[in-house]
């Protein structure tokens, strides 16, 4: 697994070097590989399509500007980008009105590969919306840590690097975040179709 991650790191860094050397195809590949993850993360954390798009574009713009100065081996491209996105999200969250609650029903995009039937599709959408609403109720830092850990699938040391905190702090944030999510979602258990599972 670690080898796979190392390979991916090298691939991103190699593509960035190719872009810095004037290879336009490398820019397209980097965009395809990285932008969806950044956009998805920003959308989960901010709960706003327009803001998420702006954040993803700004993060990629900073990557393009950084390309000629990038030093291979010093940092992982994805970690660097997630850190930029996390900081941009934090800035926007701080600027928001304290009374506003992000994460409306239209905050989460439609599933990318909808194959199931109509009823199942509706239930999946309801569950996705419920998760997004519950995420939006978390404190900002908890939400960022939970999304990085459980949706983006990053390891705790990398999350610690991205958020600029210790690993224990990450563990604490994600644990408290999960408890808060469970408490939020338990009230909607029946409505989300979990009542038939014997719980």
């Amino acid at each position, binding site marked *: 697994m670690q080898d796979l991650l190392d390979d991916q790191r090298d691939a991103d860094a190699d593509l960035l070097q190719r872009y810095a050397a004037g290879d336009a195809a490398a820019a397209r590949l980097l965009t395809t590989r990285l*932008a969806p993850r950044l956009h998805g993360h920003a959308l989960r954390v901010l709960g706003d399509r327009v803001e998420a798009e702006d954040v993803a574009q700004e993060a*990629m*713009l900073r990557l393009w500007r950084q390309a000629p100065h990038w030093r291979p081996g010093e940092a992982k491209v994805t970690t660097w980008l997630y850190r930029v996105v996390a900081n941009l999200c934090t800035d926007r969250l701080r600027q928001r009105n304290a009374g506003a609650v992000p994460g409306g029903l239209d905050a989460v995009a439609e599933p990318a590969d909808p194959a199931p039937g109509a009823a199942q599709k509706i239930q999946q959408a309801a*569950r996705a919306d419920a998760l997004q609403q519950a995420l939006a109720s978390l404190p900002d830092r908890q939400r960022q840590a939970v999304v990085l850990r459980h949706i983006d699938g990053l390891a705790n040391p990398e999350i610690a690097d991205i958020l600029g905190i210790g690993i224990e702090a990450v563990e604490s944030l994600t644990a408290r975040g*999960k408890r808060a999510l469970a408490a939020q979602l338990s009230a909607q*258990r029946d409505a989300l179709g979990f009542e038939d599972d014997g719980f």
Partner: protein
Amino acid sequence: MMDFDTDRLEDLFAAARATPPALPDRLQARILADAEQHMPMARMAWHRTLWQVLGGAAGLSGLVTATAVGVWLGVAPPATLPDLAGQVVSGDLGLSAQIDTETEALAGVYGWDMEES
């Protein structure tokens, strides 16, 4: 009421991971436009470099306009200007007469003739 258990939460996370939001086409286009604009100039293709050196569309349109005006003035100059193009074509530039006049004027100023020395 029983709390939402860990497995169900993990199911929701797994579903979220499995169905990531698609990258909007307009966002991809914006990102790629930024990439093209900020690609290091020295290593860009020669025609892109030339395009930027000329100032892009605005610079090139100014250059074309200035060239067209210059050609127009050369082909059909206003009546108040000498027809330089016509003189070049006919070979009658009047340069020998002008040089003779200037030589005589210089002789008057310095008081001696170059051919006397």
